[in-house]
């Protein structure tokens, strides 16, 4: 195992330094003192295992491919954005918009996440052990978002494809537009069980419901520009008649 101490490394030199170590044959790397640098390991595309002992800043593992990265602390906004494959595992919490546009791979967060997790996601899995704030999975185009804790309002707003798995008992009342709350299938539950076993989550697939896009309603968004009362009875009621 290669050990890199990043305490004296400038942000712009950090990734090239790690990439050099990979090029020189490192297969497992332990990095300490990253001190919340930005875009840590973004663009890394080799099959390497990296452990980061502290926290990282924005854009952690952007465009990640093939590599497996574990961050023991927190990660900032946009972690795992545009990820292609591989794994990003975060032991604590994250900022907002993590997993934006993720196309493949697994993004696993043991703590909680901010707003818009999985925004426009197209593939892969995002698993959040804690809660997810508002607009989880907004405008997703594929992939699976699994939230073990509570969901914020507007979950799944305008999803085109993909699924959000939730066991928040109030989830049905927190949906965004163009999505429906539905039962989980046996296949889906089995798939979740496999993921929970792989990442050591104490949960069972059958506890979950699924938020899915409702495509025949696409275009009829929840927040229309203006929704007047066109029925005369309703109008009369509003006037108090």
């Amino acid at each position, binding site marked *: 195992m290669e050990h890199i101490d990043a305490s004296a490394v400038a942000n712009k030199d950090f990734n090239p330094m790690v990439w050099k170590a990979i090029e020189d044959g490192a297969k497992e790397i332990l990095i300490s003192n990253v001190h919340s640098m*930005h875009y840590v390991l973004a663009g890394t595309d080799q099959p390497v295992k990296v452990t980061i002992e502290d926290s990282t800043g924005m854009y952690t593992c952007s465009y990640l491919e093939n590599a497996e990265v574990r961050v023991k602390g927190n990660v900032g906004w946009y972690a795992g954005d545009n990820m292609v494959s591989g794994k990003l595992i975060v032991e604590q919490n994250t900022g907002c918009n993590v997993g934006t546009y993720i196309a493949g791979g697994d993004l696993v967060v043991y703590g909680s996440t901010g707003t818009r997790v999985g925004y*426009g996601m197209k593939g892969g899995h995002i698993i959040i052990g804690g809660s997810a704030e508002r607009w989880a999975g907004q405008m997703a185009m594929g992939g699976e978002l699994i939230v073990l804790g509570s969901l914020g309002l507007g979950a799944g707003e305008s999803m085109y494809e993909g699924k959000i798995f939730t066991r928040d008992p109030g989830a049905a009342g927190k949906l965004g537009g163009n999505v429906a709350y539905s039962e989980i299938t046996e296949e889906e539950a089995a798939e979740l069980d496999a993921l929970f076993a792989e990442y050591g989550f104490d949960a069972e697939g059958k506890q979950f419901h699924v938020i899915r896009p409702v495509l025949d309603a696409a*275009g009829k968004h929840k927040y229309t520009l203006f929704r007047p009362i066109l029925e005369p009875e309703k109008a009369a009621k509003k006037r108090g008649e």
Partner: protein
Amino acid sequence: MAKIVNPEKGTWSNQVISEIQYKAENGKYRIRGCGSPRRVPNFDDLMILPGQLTRMPIDTYRESCSTRTVLGPAAENPLVIETPVMIAGMSFGALSKHAKIALAKATSLVGTVISNGEGGCLPEEMENSYRQSIQILASRMGFHKDLLFKADMLEILFGIGAKPGLAGHLMGAKITEEISKIRQIPAGIDLHSHPRSGDSFGADDLVVKIEQLREMLHKNTGGHTPPIFAKIAAARVREDIKIAVKAGFDGIILDGCTAGTGAAPVMAADHLGIPILPAAVQAVRTLEEIGAKDRVSLIVSGGVKDGADLAKALAIGADAIAIGTAAMVAMGCRVCMNCQAGRCAFGIGTQDPELVAKLDIDEAAHKVANYIKAMTEEAVLLAKAAGKTKLQNLEREDLRSLTLESCAMTGIPLAGSDLVFGEGFGFAAGKSL
């Protein structure tokens, strides 16, 4: 009493009546193709001063005038094209496959660059283009990482002139199986794409994102990072450009309010944004003000149609122009403004296989190439008359305004005078811009 025959209806033109009738019947606003037909101040409101006794013209037929254009000079691998006319981003979806391939082929015939537009890049476009620009859009439909490393130029898209501030819009009729596959979305739905980039929600984040992209591009292109442009619609040009430069962009594509599009709400096309003429002036002034003019390129678009527009845009200080609707017209589009219906009789703005087959790719490619060649020659002819041996040497001093309006908007002296209105008007009077 005699009836009034054909009355002048003032505000209530046939167009206005038709819009009201549409809304009354359907309870919704109208969507239209092609952008806005409004007449706004444009490059026709300027004239070019030819050389006479103060300077010698360059011989139209016997002396050279260079048209080669370098975009993003500060990038590791600046983009070099042979004419300052690029083909603007128009999606496969809004346009047919034949139209996209024809446009790409045209760029190889004249040596310029084409932008892929929203929703992925057809492999046939990439194969046939001379240089390829790849857009990074908020929707990220059809986008994948590898495209970044194949690009000769990248554009992060913040807005388009025809409907700035609005998400992309593709009517269900145009989302065929093939489009659905390349865009990675279900077929047949009315698509309202993402309005904001989910991976940079603010100007400060953008600074970090661009650093990250550049680092990754440097690694994956072996030190040949292409220029990264910001495509923005003309609005608060001064502030937007300052932010873009601070974020580290190598260039700006500035799209004026008369730019085209496959489908836009009529009100958005007609009333959002400002014309490219005053926007281009404001952009150049801003780049000069912050000392970035030499390292940040400016491409202007939104209704550019001929060599005179090109020459005037360059004289104002742009480095290149982008054409969209004009290139479609060169292929046979009649600007019927019904692209949104997806039934283009000329095989351009449609996905119907029978209609698409009507567009002969090679013939269309030649027409577009001919048009770009001829408009470049027109600009060269004007530049030579003004005494220039390089198109890029056209300068502000070579222009005069024809109207009070263009004089006020551009600060270019009124024809027959060396006078301008001063530094500011109305709200800005007395304030230096």
